[in-house]
């Protein structure tokens, strides 16, 4: 058997099980960012499914975990590695230009980030750099989360816009198709329709009139579609603007918290009272006692309920209303 040269592994061969891609085309290679040694998919399953194990390459000895394995994107391992490093650094140093007062500061920041990436990629002062990275991460934990959130939001917006556009396109295509179909029909149908009507109509009717009638009805149908198209266009533009300006999110937040009702917002628009600062020595004494508050007792809720009760039925005049109800029943 030919000994495998570990320093020069053939491109399409798994060095562990010696399977060749040529013989089994479904073979897929995976790498682990710990050491970037390629191993085929089934070997990864076999070796690492029972937990972390050392890399099967001789003289490597790194302990690898299955969940870190990924498909190789770039042919060149070095490129792949740089991408990984960059991703890792960028996750920590995730500020944007808006976060800086001047352009110079931002440039300095970028310079520093590039320095770190370069050092990590080329294995210069790796430990020191890693330490710096870690320190920075701990120090700016809050900021990092903030800008991550922002990025997520922007991404969500982008996705929303894309979805909207997709929806708009399909709708538009649908209507366009309908219009096209109608126009085709118009040509064919109008002929048969005219003939039909001419056949059934009594001789007194004007033939030209019948033809015009049929044509009118056909045209009006396409007109409806055209109108729909215009409306769609308008709606699309409106929604797009709303998403771009970020108003849709604000809208959701601003919506007053109301219980669900089957008809949207079938509530009293403004209560007949203004909620204010109320004074009740007896109750406030009670609420000062932690035993009352511990159970979730809130004075505000009680006030609100009392006020609501005060104006629930104030204008129901039973003498009149019940009398009317009786008349209706009779």
């Amino acid at each position, binding site marked *: 058997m030919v000994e495998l040269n570990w320093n020069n592994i053939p491109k399409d061969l798994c060095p562990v099980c010696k399977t060749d891609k040529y013989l089994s085309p479904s073979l897929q290679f995976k790498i682990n960012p710990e050491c970037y040694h390629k191993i085929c998919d089934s070997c990864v399953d076999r070796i690492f499914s029972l937990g972390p194990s050392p890399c099967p390459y001789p003289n490597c000895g790194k302990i690898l975990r299955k969940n870190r394995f990924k498909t190789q994107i770039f042919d060149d391992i070095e490129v792949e590695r740089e991408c990984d490093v960059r991703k890792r650094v960028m996750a920590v140093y995730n500020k944007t230009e808006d976060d800086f007062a001047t352009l110079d500061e931002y440039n300095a920041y970028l310079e520093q980030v590039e320095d770190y990436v370069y050092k990590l990629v080329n294995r210069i002062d790796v430990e020191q750099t890693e330490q710096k990275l870690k320190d920075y991460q701990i120090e700016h934990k809050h900021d990092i989360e903030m800008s991550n959130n922002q990025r997520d939001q922007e991404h969500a917006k982008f996705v929303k816009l894309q979805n909207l556009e997709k929806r708009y396109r399909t709708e538009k295509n649908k209507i366009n198709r309908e219009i096209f179909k109608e126009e085709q029909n118009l040509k064919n149908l109008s002929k048969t329709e005219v003939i039909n009507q001419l056949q059934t109509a009594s001789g007194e009717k004007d033939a030209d009139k019948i033809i015009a009638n049929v044509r009118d009805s056909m045209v009006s149908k396409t007109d409806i579609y055209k109108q729909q198209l215009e409306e769609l266009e308008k709606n699309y533009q409106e929604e797009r603007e709303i998403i771009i300006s970020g108003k849709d999110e604000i809208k959701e937040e601003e919506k007053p918290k109301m219980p669900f009702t089957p008809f949207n917002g*079938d509530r009293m628009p403004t*209560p007949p009272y203004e909620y204010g600062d*109320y004074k009740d020595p007896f109750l406030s004494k009670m609420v000062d006692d932690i035993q009352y508050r511990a159970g979730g007792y809130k004075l505000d809720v009680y*006030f609100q309920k009392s006020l609501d009760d005060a104006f629930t*039925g104030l204008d129901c005049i*039973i003498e009149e209303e019940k009398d009317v109800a009786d008349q209706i029943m009779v």
Partner: protein
Amino acid sequence: MVVSNDDLFRRSTQFRFWSFTRLQLEELRVVANKKGIEKTEERINQLDDSLPETKIVKDHRDQFQYVHLDEEKKLVSYYARRCKELASFFHLSAQSRSTAIMYLYKFYLYHSVMEYHPGNIMLTCLFLAAKVENQFIGINSFSKNIPKTTPEGILKNEYLILETMKFSLQCHHPFQPLYGFFLDIQQMLPKLDFNRLGKNYDGARELVNDSLFSDLPFLYTPPQIALTCLWVCDDVLVEKYLSKKFKVNRKDEPDDEQGLQHYNKILVIIRQCADILRKEVQDPSQDESKTISAKIKLCLEPARFGKKILKQTTEQLKRPASIDESPDTKRVKVESE
């Protein structure tokens, strides 16, 4: 679609089932009273003919006294008052207490005291109300604390009451609205002396308690009663509050037409309501109730009536001197009605 709080109230069972005009209320009571009389007659007819008193009852039918409409009202009110005392004995909240009283009154809109003795119904109402208002008392401890009762005797009527309530157990009392006005007045009239408001609020609360012993809860809505009670305590305060609330009588602005109408409408209601509150709150004495109660006992068990007459006649036979006396007492009784 806008749904106001008032519309919500119109959806409540209190409005749908338990609010009446004066006429309707009167009619219900007349019907109930008639039903009671019919039931009593039925009972008399069903008496066992073999007993000696049956004959006497049938002979003296013209002397048999039914309970009048007013008497019914009085007796129910008497037991409602006792219900209040009993509720304070059990340390029940105002809410439970009032609910029990309302149950009692509601029950006797559809039944007559000649069918069910209010003394028994009252106990069950209280037990049920405590349960409904989340202040449950175990039936055994409940019964143990009231002499001459058994748990079975109290529970026996429970379903009957539920049925009469049309299973609508929620009662809206004026306490909470009154408190709401107490708060809203603070907001609307910030310069008002707080002690004055507090004093009036306490007084109004007492009146709200009293209002239960009239027909008010059937005729007016809880906020209206609450405002009335406050108005009776301090009419200047309430009118000032309402005029500010509905934006009338303001110097700098012309009167808001709608507000003025609204204001007048509510004030009319308050005046009517206060009239009832002043005149029709019932607190019958024990003696009154005793005479009515005695009548009921006869209605419930007509055989007793026969026994009573039997006893009277035998006494008359034994002591001829007392012949003059007994018709006299009877006449007094008749006159007293």
